Each structure stands twice: as C-alpha cells, then as structure tokens.
C-alpha cells in the first residue's frame, strides 16, 4: 500500500528582486510516499533550497508563491497558518541541515537541546533525557548518558551530524528532510552516515526527502530520484530507471560527468559547457536547450513533464518520437 505522504503539485515560486522576478521554481511536481526515500539531485541554482524552504515555509520575505500546492497527508500546506506550520515543523516533518558545525546552539548542552525539542511530549524531564540518550545510542554515539552533558564543540563534525539526525528523528516524524547532510563531511564519515540513515529509516519507517548533488550517495540510498535543473524538474523515476535508463540529456550528462565511475585516468573529463541560465531572464523553450548537444527545433517550446512508463517521467521532446521526427 503506497500512500502518498507529500505531494508537490505544480508548484511555482518566485523571488521578487530589484532585477525582476527570479523564477526559482516552475511547475514542480513529484510525490513522496510513506516510508520511501526520495532523492533530489541538482546542482547549484536548481531550486532545491527554495523547495525545502517552501515546504517548511521558512521563507525569505521576498518569496512569492505563484501557483500550485504542497499537500502533506492530503492537506495543502500553503493554506495553513504560521501557527499550524510551526506545529508541523519538528513534529511530523523534521529537517537535518547541511553544516553540522552550525546546527546546534553552541552555549547549551546537547542534553538540554534534545530535551527542549521534545516540548510536545507530555513526559517528565527524566523521561525526556532517557529518550534522548536512547536516540544518541541509536545513532552510534558511545556513552550517551554522559555525553548529554557535553556541549556541541566537544563533538566532531561527523558526530554532530549524527546528533542532528537523532534530534530530527526523536519526534518520529512522517517525513525527514535531509538537506545535503553529508556534503560537509569526509567520504568515510559520509558513508557512515548513509549506512546509519538506512538503518534508522528501516526502524522508524519515516519517509526521507534526501537532497544532494552527490550522485553516488543518491544511487546508494534512494528508492526514487527527482532530477532538478534551474528551477524545473527535468526527470523523475525509480533509482534504477534514472541511473540505468536516463531519459533527459541533462541527467545523462550529469551521470557522465560524475568522475566516480570513470575508472581510468582521463586526460579530458566530461563537462557540461555553458552556465546555468539567469532565473530572472529565462530563455524561451526548454531550460536546458542552450547547453544541450541534442537540441532540436521543437525545443523552442517548453517540454512538459511526461509520463514515459510506470514511475518514470521526463521533460524532453526527444522522448516524443512523433514531435522530433
């Protein structure tokens, strides 16, 4: 039974700036089902940060929601009041951020911070501390009871990130949003965290929305993948479909460029020439057209996100044989 937990439906978000409207998200649509891990892959400027801030409504003052809905358990979050959103944050929806060195309040002990975020639970402080210690143990922090009394600076970066995950999972959220949680960590720590996340997800059964630009981690962790480029979803599908049978030129190029799979020393590494388009001055037609080596005439129209097979969507005219022919 796959129940849809989060449904992003044709979401469009702009930033109002002096230079004009920055079209940060355009017609974004994808789902996250209960208990599944969905990865969002994209490079700088693709809109991942805007997407997360839109879901949690932790937005900059010049953000404008132009269109669309964000449905969580059937409810459109965009119609909720700030108080209702606050009830949701850290409760049913939790988040782990990118920089573990800045996540925690440096002048409050970890124990106190972990007790504080249990403010919804009607349990005693002692019970909250016990829960906190249990969570620290679950993320692999040795000697948790003693460490609750320590301050963030007494933990390494990798440990702090694990604490952040522990804190995010304490409320047993339905959805955990992980915003590049391993980008700031060394590779060996990264794999530790990924393994840990996999185990925890199995135990807690929450859905995870995992944002990263690291293809290898996405391939290892996620069930489904959404590929974003310059504010649009260009492809989405199961992890196998995306990596073994990509249907969008950007996805293909992205996978090619990842040096992780280039085993032999390459004199010239593949790249995607050109720059990400200016979101305030969008080109006509397909957003990837200027950098695509397979562009054809009909790319002057914006291709719709089309369903190509069960669970595999792509926004590219090349998949419409009749258009290209």
């Amino acid at each position: 039974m796959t129940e849809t937990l989060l449904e992003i439906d044709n979401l469009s978000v702009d930033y109002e700036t002096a230079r004009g409207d920055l079209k940060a998200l355009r017609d974004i649509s994808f789902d996250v089902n209960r208990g599944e891990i969905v990865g969002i892959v994209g490079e700088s400027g693709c809109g991942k940060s805007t997407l997360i801030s839109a879901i949690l409504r932790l937005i900059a003052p010049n953000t404008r929601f132009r269109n669309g809905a964000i449905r969580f358990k059937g409810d459109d979050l965009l119609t909720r009041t700030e108080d209702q959103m606050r009830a949701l944050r850290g409760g049913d929806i939790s988040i782990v951020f990118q920089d573990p060195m800045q996540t925690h309040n440096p002048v409050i002990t970890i124990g106190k911070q972990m007790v504080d975020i249990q403010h919804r639970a009607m349990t005693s402080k002692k019970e909250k501390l016990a829960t906190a210690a249990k969570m620290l143990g679950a993320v692999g922090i040795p000697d948790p009871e003693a460490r609750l009394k320590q301050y963030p600076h007494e933990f390494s970066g990798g440990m702090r990130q694990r604490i952040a995950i522990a804190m995010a999972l304490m409320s047993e959220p339905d959805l955990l949003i992980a915003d590049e949680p391993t980008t700031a960590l060394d590779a060996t720590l990264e794999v530790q965290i990924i393994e840990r996340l996999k185990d925890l997800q199995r135990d807690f059964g929450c859905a995870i929305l995992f944002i990263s630009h690291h293809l290898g981690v996405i391939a290892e962790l996620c069930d489904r993948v959404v590929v974003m480029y310059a504010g649009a979803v260009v492809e989405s599908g199961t992890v196998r479909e995306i990596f073994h049978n990509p249907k969008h030129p950007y996805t293909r190029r992205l996978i090619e460029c990842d040096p992780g799979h280039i085993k032999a020393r390459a004199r010239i590494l593949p790249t995607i020439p050109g720059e990400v388009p200016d979101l305030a001055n969008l080109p006509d037609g397909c957003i990837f057209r200027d950098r695509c080596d397979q562009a054809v005439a009909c790319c002057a129209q914006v291709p719709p996100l089309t369903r190509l097979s069960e669970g595999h969507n792509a926004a590219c005219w090349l998949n419409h044989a009749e258009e290209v022919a």
Partner: protein
Amino acid sequence: MTDIIADTSKSRSELAIIIAGVARDPLGLIGLIIVGSIVFSAVFASWIVPYDPIAMNIPDRMQGPSGTHLLGTDQLGRDTFSRVISGGQVALKVALPAIFGAMTIGLTLGMIAGYGPKWLDNFLMLLFDTIRSFPTVMFALAVVALVGPSLQTVVFVVMATSIPTYGRVARTQTLTLRNSEFILAERAMGASMARILGVHMLPNIIGVLAVLAAMDIPTVIALEAGLSFLGLGVKPPTPSWGVLLKDGYALIRQTPWLVVGGGLPIILATLGFTFLGESLRDVVDPKLRKNR
C-alpha cells in the same frame, strides 16, 4: 543562493547606492534632510545670516522674537537667529575636524593593534584605556588651564578623547578579518603589512567607522556645547550653541528664546545625525553580507 539575490548592476557608484538606500528609509530621509540643512546653512552661513552675529546693538537688546529678529536678540543686542546659524558653523568646525582626526588616528592605531605583534596590541590598548578613563571635562579643564580656551582647544580635547572609540572598533574588525582566507591569500603572495592593512583591511573597516562617526557627531556637538557652556570652549564673541545656552540660561526669565535658540539646534542635530547614522548602518551592513 546569494548570487541569485545579489544585484549585478554596478552602473552607479557605491556612494550613490548608499545615499539612495538611506533615502528609501523614512527616518533616514528625515536625517538626510536635517543634516543636509545644517551643513548647508553652516557652509553658507556668511551669506544667509540676516545680521552680523557678533555685531552688538545695545538699544535693541533682549527683544523677543519679531519680524526683524526671528529669534529675538540677546543681552548685547545680537540677533539670535544669526548666532544660531553661525553656531552651526562652529559646531561643524569642531565636530568635523575632531571626528575626522580621531577616526584617522584611531583607524591607524586600531589596525596596527589588531594586526601587529601582541606586545604592541597590549600597549595600545593600555593607552586607549588610559585615555578613556579620564573624564572628558576634567581633561578639558586641564588643557584649557594649560593653553587657554579656544576653538582649537576644543577640537583637540574632543579628538583626543574620541580616538579610543574608533581605535577599538578598528581593532576588533581587524582581528576578525585577520584570519580570513583572503588575507591569508595576500600573505601567501608576500604582501607587506602596510599593503594588507591599507588595501585590504581598510575598505572593509571604513564603512563601520563611518557609521560610528555619523552617530558620534551629535555627541561631539553636545560636547562642544557643554564645554562652551562651562566657559571652557570657544572664546567670546564667537557664537556657539553652547554659548547661546549659557547666555540664555543666565537670563532665562528675560530671554528664554536664547535657550530655545541654543537648545533646539542641538536636539535637531542629534536627531538628524542619529537617524542618518542608523540608516547608514542598515544600508552598509547587508552589503557587507553579500560577500558570503
């Protein structure tokens, strides 16, 4: 994300951008107008004043405000309004050199303290703390006793006592920037301390100091007024707002308009410069943040 929101048009000069930013803020605009008026009237005082501010006219003494004398006359028959305008000139003649001098010296010493060897830092901090521990009025008394009261004395006293303020701020900014990657890069290229401080540190610090200076001007004006009120400031017959206050205070029942004439400009100047300074700070600050 910062580069999405950053403004990429650099067609206008930085100063124009700052002024435009200040003008957008209502309080900043008020500050800009007040300060602009004060500066204007100070610069063009000689042409604006209806009467010679030091010309005595005993028959007309102690007149109330009227058509001929907007703010009346004082006990020597001098036109109050003209003295108020000239007082503005005096106020700025003291404030601007004093603050500019204090800022320059404070900036230099502060940067050296923040970047140089520890012993020099300790020495300079000791120096600053010593200066700050002197009550300004006592210090002024001592200097006046030595060299007599005058405009220059006031400028000197004000400057000397303000140096530690700018010095401390410059030092803190320098200490913060000292370990930034771009300073490290300059050191990696072999830049000398003078170059690092002058070319790379200074532009990043001066904004903060300028804001401080703008907010400091009313303090200095009040300081000058205070010293002049005590008779330690400018020599008569030079008009200064403090002197006006003093004259008016002595004969407050007969010539209350002198107190207004002396006090109101100080209040307006304080308000104006403070609004301007705060607005400046808001405009300058987020620009610095763009560098993330």
